[in-house]
């Protein structure tokens, strides 16, 4: 069965650069979530989209933005990167009340 696809799997950027993470949800899922997991921490909710509209916002820095496109894929744009942005970024998708299914994540390293 198709799963949530994230790209790239690994990304290395320098401070103050920008990064774009992509997420392709499970087909027919209507909601996409973005989470950030720092070392030794639990996944922290960043933002979610339902039917291409932002549905909820968590602890997402103003330097980050996200959107969901007409084909339901989503992109997380991160600008003015800081060392503290180094983390695993997970995308998840769900359909209605069902469980959220996660992608394999993108490991972002800011040097």
């Amino acid at each position, binding site marked *: 069965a198709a799963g*949530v696809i994230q790209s790239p799997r690994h990304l290395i950027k320098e401070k103050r650069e920008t990064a774009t993470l992509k997420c392709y949800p499970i087909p027919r899922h209507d909601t996409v979530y973005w*989470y950030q997991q720092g070392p030794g*921490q*639990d996944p922290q*909710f960043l933002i979610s989209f*339902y039917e291409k509209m932002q*549905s*909820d916002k968590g602890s997402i820095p103003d330097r980050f933005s996200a959107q969901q496109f007409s084909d339901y894929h989503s992109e997380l744009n991160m600008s003015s990167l800081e060392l503290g942005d180094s983390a695993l970024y997970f995308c998840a998708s769900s359909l209605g*009340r069902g469980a959220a299914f*996660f992608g394999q994540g993108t490991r972002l390293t800011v040097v």
Partner: protein
Amino acid sequence: DQQVKQNSPSLSVQEGRISILNCDYTNSMFDYFLWYKKYPAEGPTFLISISSIKDKNEDGRFTVFLNKSAKHLSLHIVPSQPGDSAVYFCAASARLETTGTYKYIFGTGTRLKVLA
């Protein structure tokens, strides 16, 4: 403000025995609860869920118990196997009144080690 808490950061269990992972939550609006298993550098994998209208859900070796009055849920793994060694996250979900969509809040995780 941690709305979902897993007070045991780690747990070691002998192979074949029962593993019990606990989770507490504070928000009474949560009405759907899930457990995820996570290996290093991989995304969380959905294991089992339970709706607030139930107090137990079973799937093979995994059983989740929900005590709404205590705002507590637990995951039982019987029998435990070395391959179960991973970090387990509980998550709680509530419906957002403003958008009609759902929000998932994760606990801090418990690292389970099953000893052969």
